[in-house]
């Protein structure tokens, strides 16, 4: 007895299988009733995975809360892992758009990923709600298909500069941040706002992204009364620890990645006193944030940071836009314009709206890290000490004046003698 598998049998089997498949899943007759396709570009492997996993958790928490319905339509969620690099982002966005035929793209995480896919988005007129902070895509080289409900790189750092000068009463600050675009833009914003209010940046240090030991930089922190760090990923943890172990006592301030709430469970007591500016805070007591944080705790037993919050807010925007159009997202230009025109009151970061370039106008929270008020089983807590409302990407400057200046770089704004 032999069971030979002939080519004929294989063909017959495949045909039968294909027939069965078509029979079981008939093509939807009316496009309106087809599920709404939500695509996410995130990072689930490699060094950027911490934030990327949070992004996906934020989306799923929103979908579970809404029973996978948006604007009256069932949602089909497709998540793609870019691996955290521009080439991966390019491949995956093509898959989402051309193979999965998504209606909207959420993400990507990193600025260089967004730059890599920006032209593609324009070409395919694909509404994209990004988390990546690459400023110029909503400033000097605007991408009309882009909406950013989180913040530009310097949107939180500009209020931080104001707070450092006026409330922390710092006069001379050393800045230290990774040597890449997100770092330049953060510190450019900090410096411009800090110096506008009478402070002075005395030294700018730029460690490479991969710096196991910050001692060579810590040794250069002197002749100042404060430090501003803008590290991302796991770097803030290591920086604060090493900063403390060398007995440095100057107050430290930072932006959304350097003091992210998701890091609270990893930070040690050495981070106490860290002042951070962030477009989201775990501390905010409003209905949306309660729903969101409880959802995150229930689904993942973890507190959200600004990556998860950013994507949750993005989902709210998509949901509200879809609702306003009665669930019809087929006209992409109209869908985009509707979302851009939204003003949503109840989000985990408070009320938001968009400016004409597609960037968010909303709250920036200044928080101080300490033990007081810690919830959800955490030992440390970012307590909100001040809320700046309706902060735009241009801070206090008129848009024209802001855009006339060059984009922030390593050497701009330049160091002044002081």
């Amino acid at each position, binding site marked *: 007895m032999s069971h030979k598998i002939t080519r004929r049998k294989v063909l017959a089997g495949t045909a039968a299988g294909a027939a069965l498949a078509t029979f079981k899943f008939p093509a939807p007759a009316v496009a309106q009733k087809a599920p709404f396709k939500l695509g996410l570009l995130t990072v689930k*492997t*490699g*060094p950027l*995975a*911490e*934030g*990327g*996993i*949070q992004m996906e958790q934020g989306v799923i928490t929103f979908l579970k809360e809404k029973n996978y319905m948006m604007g009256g339509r069932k949602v089909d969620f497709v998540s793609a892992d870019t691996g955290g690099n521009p080439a991966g982002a390019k491949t995956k966005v093509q898959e989402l758009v051309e193979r999965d035929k998504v209606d909207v793209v959420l993400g990507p995480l990193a600025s260089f990923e967004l730059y890599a896919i920006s032209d593609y988005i324009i070409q395919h007129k694909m509404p994209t709600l990004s988390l990546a902070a690459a400023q110029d895509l909503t400033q000097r080289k605007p991408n009309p298909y882009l909406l950013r409900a989180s913040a530009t790189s310097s949107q939180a750092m500009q209020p931080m500069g104001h707070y450092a000068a006026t409330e922390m009463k710092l006069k001379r600050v050393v800045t230290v941040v990774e*040597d890449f675009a997100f770092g330049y833009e953060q510190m450019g914003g900090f410096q411009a706002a800090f110096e506008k209010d009478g402070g002075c940046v005395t030294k700018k*240090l*730029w*460690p*490479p992204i*991969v*710096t*196991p*030991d910050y*001692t*060579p*930089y810590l*040794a*250069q922190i*002197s002749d100042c009364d404060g430090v501003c760090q803008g590290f991302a*990923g*796991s770097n803030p*943890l*290591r920086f604060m*620890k*090493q900063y403390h*172990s*060398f*007995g440095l006592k100057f107050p430290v301030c930072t932006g959304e990645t350097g003091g992210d709430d*998701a*890091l609270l*469970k*990893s*930070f*040690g007591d050495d981070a106490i006193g860290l002042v951070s500016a962030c477009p989201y805070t775990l501390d905010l007591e409003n209905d949306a944030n309660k729903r969101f944080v409880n959802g995150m705790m229930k689904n993942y037993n973890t507190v959200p940071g600004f990556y998860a919050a950013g994507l949750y807010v993005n989902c709210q925007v998509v949901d509200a836009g879809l609702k306003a159009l009665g669930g019809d997202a087929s006209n992409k230009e109209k869908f985009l314009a509707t979302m851009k025109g939204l003003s949503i009151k109840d989000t985990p970061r408070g009320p938001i709206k968009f400016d004409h370039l597609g960037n968010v106008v909303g709250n920036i929270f200044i928080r101080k890290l300490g033990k007081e008020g810690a919830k959800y089983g955490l030992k440390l807590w970012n307590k909100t000490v001040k809320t700046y409302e309706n902060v735009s990407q241009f801070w206090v400057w008129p848009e024209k004046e802001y855009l006339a200046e060059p984009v922030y770089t390593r050497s701009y704004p330049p160091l002044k003698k002081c």
Partner: protein
Amino acid sequence: MTFWVLLAVNSITFGGLLFLLSAGFSLIFGLMRIPNLTHGSLFMLGAYVGATLIVSVLNTSIDFWLAAILSALIVAIFGALIERLLLRRLPGEPLAQVLVTLGISFMVADFCLMVWGGDPISVATPSSLVGFVRYGVAVFPLYRLAIIGIAAVVALALWLLLERTRLGAMIRAGVDDPDMARVVGIRVSQIFTIVFGLGAALAGFAGIIGGPILSVYPGLDQDMLPLALVVVILGGTGSLLGSFVGSLIVGFLYNFGQALLPELAYFILFLPMLLVLVLRPQGLFGRQLP
């Protein structure tokens, strides 16, 4: 002045940590003739396992030093298994072996991400070594000074093992001329397993010792592997003295390079490696491979 003292002392402590990392890498490279690209992963695995042991096993927390030794043992077993089950099956095919180690490094990275998640883990400094030493106006963390001591002890132990024991003599014979060693009755393939396990143990140990300074996070493996590679190419493969001196050189280059010329930090770090490869391929203290 303070600045220079601080950097000089830190160069030595960082060199100490690099020595713990690269001594095993050098031994494996010397004996098996392959750069073990899993070495960074073994470092990271040791750090993760150690950090987990310290925090809790069945709700009883384990002392830092005991956790360090246990995680070294666990990583050693893992390393020995890699050699015995995978590399052994590809004898005389160095390229295939290197690719296998590269493959395993990606798998370990994903495994760690799956088990420990993406959040960085902070390893507490052992309580007896918290605090710092003051020298004039310079402040130096006690734990970092302790690393110099740990590296010195490990260096001495390894030297005794290699120079004063029968096993050490067999390893040296295997490094110098594996074929001839086989002829005189040394089971070189068994030595391979032992050395791979020992190298893995050192990497895992270095991982947890480095924990209080570096913390543990996804990507730690890729951050550390190039440093080990530079050390070993500078110092010479299979040479203990080579990895000792190489670690110190890299420690100084790293610290002073980043402090004085941060834009060229990596240039300064890798330039000596290129020069050595071109002018003295066997490294400063390595012997010409047969």
